[in-house]
Every structure is written in structure tokens, then in C-alpha cells.
């Protein structure tokens, strides 16, 4: 499986050679666009990260955790993982660090460790996607779509914990 990406790269380079595409020029043309894109994303990324950082520093996350963990428990998500489930939609690097903490504390092959793995592997940073994807448009109200995305996120976490009971 780890050979998948190298294969994709080599196939593309061979294809460029056969089709006499100027790969060097193409790469430069494409890579050039990365600069304005990253710059235009900055305010959007900053808005999310500042809010997440404030929530962490103020302890609002703990309040949040305290309020929602009984709810998550009802869905079969163990208490040890409620923090991970709650942080996952907001912060990719933050939840990755939490996943690592779970592995250190409970071991990657324990029930909690496996649940955490499946939960992390089958969800995405919804809020980050929500701001970044729409950064180029005037769309600021995601309404129902955001609710659907978050519902899917909760469903993933619940399904992950359920499925891990049987494996």
C-alpha cells in the first residue's frame, strides 16, 4: 500500500515523458499558484485557530467536555475519548496529539486505542474544511450542510466505537 503514491508519481513522470509534456514547466506553473492560495487562506485559518486556542486557554474545552461527554456516552463513546471526539472537528494537529496521548495511556491495541484509531481515521476536521473550502466565495452561511457534516462526524464516532466492540 505504501507503494501506491510512488507508483502514481512514476506513472505521471513516464506519461509526461511519453507525451512530450514539459514536466518542469508544468510543475512551476502549478506550484506558482500555491503562493497566492496559501496567503488568501491565512485569515480563514487564523480565525479558526485563534478560536481553538482561546477555547483551550480559557478552559472552555473542559466545560464543553463536561457538558457533552454524558451525551457522547449515550451514543456508546467512552468517556476517555469524548475529548478526542470533541476536538477532532476543530483541530487536526490538536486531535492528532490527543490520539497519541490515548495510545500512550491505554496502548494502541486496547479497546479505547482501537476506537480512537477508527474514530480519527474516519472523520475529518469539519470546521477547518468549512472555512477553507469556502474561502474563495461569498458563501458564509453553511446552515444545513454544516449540521449534516457534524451529524456525520458524530455518527462516525458512534459507529467506530460500536464496530470496535466486535473486532
Amino acid at each position, binding site marked *: 500500500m505504501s507503494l501506491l503514491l510512488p507508483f502514481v508519481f512514476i506513472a505521471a513522470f513516464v506519461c509526461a515523458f511519453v507525451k512530450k509534456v514539459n514536466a518542469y514547466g508544468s510543475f512551476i506553473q502549478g506550484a506558482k499558484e500555491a503562493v497566492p492560495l*496559501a496567503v488568501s487562506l491565512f485569515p480563514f485559518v487564523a480565525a479558526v485557530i485563534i478560536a481553538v486556542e482561546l477555547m483551550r486557554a480559557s478552559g472552555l474545552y473542559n466545560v464543553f467536555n463536561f457538558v457533552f461527554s454524558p451525551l457522547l456516552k449515550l451514543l456508546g463513546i467512552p468517556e476517555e475519548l469524548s475529548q478526542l471526539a470533541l476536538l477532532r472537528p476543530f483541530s487536526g494537529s490538536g486531535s492528532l496529539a490527543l490520539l497519541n496521548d490515548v495510545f500512550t495511556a491505554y496502548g494502541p491495541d486496547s479497546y479505547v486505542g482501537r476506537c480512537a484509531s477508527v474514530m480519527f481515521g474516519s472523520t475529518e476536521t469539519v470546521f477547518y474544511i468549512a472555512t477553507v473550502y469556502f474561502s474563495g466565495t461569498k458563501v458564509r452561511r453553511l446552515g444545513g450542510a454544516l449540521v449534516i457534516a457534524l451529524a456525520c462526524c458524530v455518527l462516525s464516532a458512534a459507529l467506530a466505537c460500536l464496530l470496535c466492540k466486535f473486532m
Partner: protein
Amino acid sequence: MRYIWLAMMTLSVALMAFTDPGGIITAMTDGAETSLMTCASLMAVYCVWMGFINIIKDCGVVEKLSRAGSPLIKKLFGKGARGAADDISLNISANLLGVGNAATPPAISAVKKMDGGDGKLTRGMAMLFVVNACGLQIVPATVVGLRAAAGSAAPASVILPCLAVSLATTAAGIILVSLFYKEK
């Protein structure tokens, strides 16, 4: 989104006003600094992927890919997605391969192409957002890598459950978006 953001900011600052008023600005500037680093590393990562994607585009591979996927794309994303088929198929392929960072630039471009300019969320935009939010990928490489590093006896044992769960939620997401965002 704006209400959630406002609520997060207001509640945090209100809470900190009691516990640590001096830390408010520090937390905010720390956050901004982290985002600057994030964007800098994103620029580097996007440079690699957008350069590479452009090579595949110039080889005509993307065109073939989107032609193959176009019946499905039309069905899922609606008529508004016609011009964005290339970007959507790139986004989905990159997601499946597990390179989320390569999936973002085509997604941004696809959303722009599906935008009516009136600030309204179209069917195609909602679908692309939800499908991406469900995180469908063939191999969750990050998790498998971290499990291996943590000394797991079977780091790859979570691949199938991850796939099953994200398939289920992606299907649920697609159904919900199709129900709530009918095309006129």
C-alpha cells in the same frame, strides 16, 4: 459558522476574564502565530501537490479521470458541477489516496466554479463539503503510522473498520444532502 465562531470567542473571553484576563491577548496572538506557521507549511505542501497535479493535468490524465467519473459527478453534485468536474475528480482521488493536502486546492477551485456569486450554498457545494467532511480514504496513513510508532502489534488492523465507517457516513451524508438540497 459565524454564530459558532462568535459563540466560541465570546464564551472563551468571558471565561478568561475571570480566570486569566492577561492571557487573552497572548492566546489570540499565539493562535495567529500558529496559523501563520500553518499557512507557511501549507504553502510548501501545496507547492508540491499543485505542481504535480499540473503535470498530470498537462498529460491529459485529469480529463480522462473526470470523463470517467462525470456521470456519477453529475448525479451527485448536480448540474452546477459541470465546469468543476476536473477539480471534483481530483479532489476525490486525492482523498481516496489519503493525501488530504492535495485534495484542498482542487476543492477550493471547484467550490469557486460552482459558486453563483450570490452567497448562496448550492447543491454541488454542499455535497463537496459534506463528502470531504466524511473523510473517505482507502488507507488512513496517519493513523496507521502513529499506531506503528506507538508499538501496536497490528497497526493496519484498523484500515477495514475505518473504511467501513467512513463509507457508511459518506453514504449517509450523500443521502442527507440530496434530500435537503434538491436542485431546482
